[in-house]
């Protein structure tokens, strides 16, 4: 089969989907991305400048002109860097894993408390109080002193103000499985109810892309094609790289 259904879309077992979802949820550090963006920009500009110079000027002037163009590119880039530096959000010293944050102190978990996950690049220093990064919800404040031993941490009460409903990827998958089953069974209203419930339970869920895709399918099957089309546009804006975009576009087309 050339286009098999993906494991994460329901073809795989629950454990397979959990593992793949964890891989898909991995994110790079903002600062590294920003740094690479600057370099990418500067080198791109340098390349183009060089090409222009070579095309426009003779061999004698070439080296000097190229150097001028490169200096101009680097200088402007540096000025831009300085200009935006003040607005760069500080790279969080440690990021609270958004999924772990949602898992309350369940006894069966290896890490009963929300974990502090070091960012991919070397972190400067550990901190005693970790505040949620700006993009995370402000309602969770975690005190996780890394210097305390694991046994002490396990004994300490979790200072976590988590939402009421237990949140984990397993629960997310479970909710979406029910919605998917309802869509598959032709019960679009029930599927939408399930997806509303999912949205309430997991406002920052890992599988929101999948949830939105299911909602669009449910709306189409419920005859609400205009709403589905609007959501499909939103889907494309939110997940421009998604493999579902084209299929959803075709799905919401007028018959």
């Amino acid at each position, binding site marked *: *089969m*050339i*286009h*098999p259904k*993906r*494991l994460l879309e329901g073809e*795989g*077992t629950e*454990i*397979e989907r*959990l*593992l*793949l*979802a*964890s*891989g898909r949820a*991995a994110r*790079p550090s903002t600062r*590294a*991305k*920003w740094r*690479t*963006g600057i*370099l*990418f*920009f500067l*080198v*791109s*500009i340098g*390349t*183009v*400048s060089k*090409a*222009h110079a070579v095309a426009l000027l003779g061999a004698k002037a070439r080296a000097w002109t190229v150097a001028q*163009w490169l200096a*101009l*590119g680097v200088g*402007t880039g540096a*000025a*831009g860097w300085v*200009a*935006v530096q003040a607005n760069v959000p500080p790279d969080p010293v440690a990021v609270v*894993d958004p*999924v772990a944050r949602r*898992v309350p102190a369940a006894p*069966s*978990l*290896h*890490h009963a408390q929300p*974990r502090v*996950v070091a960012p*991919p690049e*070397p972190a400067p220093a550990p901190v005693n109080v970790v505040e949620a990064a700006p993009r995370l919800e402000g309602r969770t404040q975690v005190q996780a002193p890394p210097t305390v031993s694991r046994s002490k941490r396990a004994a300490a009460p979790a200072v976590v103000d988590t939402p009421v409903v237990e949140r*984990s*990827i*397993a629960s997310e998958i479970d909710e979406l499985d029910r919605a998917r089953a309802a869509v598959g069974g032709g019960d679009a209203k029930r599927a939408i109810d399930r997806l509303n419930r999912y949205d309430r339970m997991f406002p920052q869920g890992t599988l929101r892309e999948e949830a939105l895709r299911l909602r669009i399918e449910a709306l189409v099957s419920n005859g609400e094609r205009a709403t589905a089309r609007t959501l499909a546009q939103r889907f494309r804006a939110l997940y*421009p*790289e*998604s493999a*579902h975009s084209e299929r959803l576009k075709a799905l919401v087309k007028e018959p």
Partner: protein
Amino acid sequence: MLDRLFDADVALPASALGALELHQLFKSTYDGIWRLLRGLGVPTDRLDDAAQQVFLVYAERHADVVRGSERAFLFGTALRVAHVVRRGTHREVPVEIDYAPSEQPSVDELTDQKRARQVLDRILDQLDPELRDVFVLYELEGFTMPEIAGIVEVPLGTAASRLRRGRERFSALVRRYSTFGPPSLQEDAR
């Protein structure tokens, strides 16, 4: 912030349209490239550098890249960078995981994402590189089979065959993991 930086190039020799396209391309592909490199086994401490290398290769050669195939070029470059980095790291990858019978992991355990990622990494390490490339591109990055065939530069049938074998191997390893539990996961492995 990057938007502002890219906006600053209006006075530069590059055309504004080109810079805007580069910006869009960077924004839409960086996370995927980084994740792909990770999925292909680039060690965490080298991920950012490897991602940077991919984009610098593109930046130096973007004039030569066929219009419309920028993403394929970037992801194809990422595959090659990942292979080079992996060869250079000399990480010992056992042919088979030495599973020691242990308590069967529960779903709750796997909800711990860090642990789940470690398990995923260990399992992916057991896949042959050519199967892993196709498997990660399809299952984690959401590419279609024709896109993958283009990126990996193999016929479509070969890509499909690799995916099928990769999935069989992956499922077998996950089943094995579910039965026997993982080997002692080294915290510093990833």
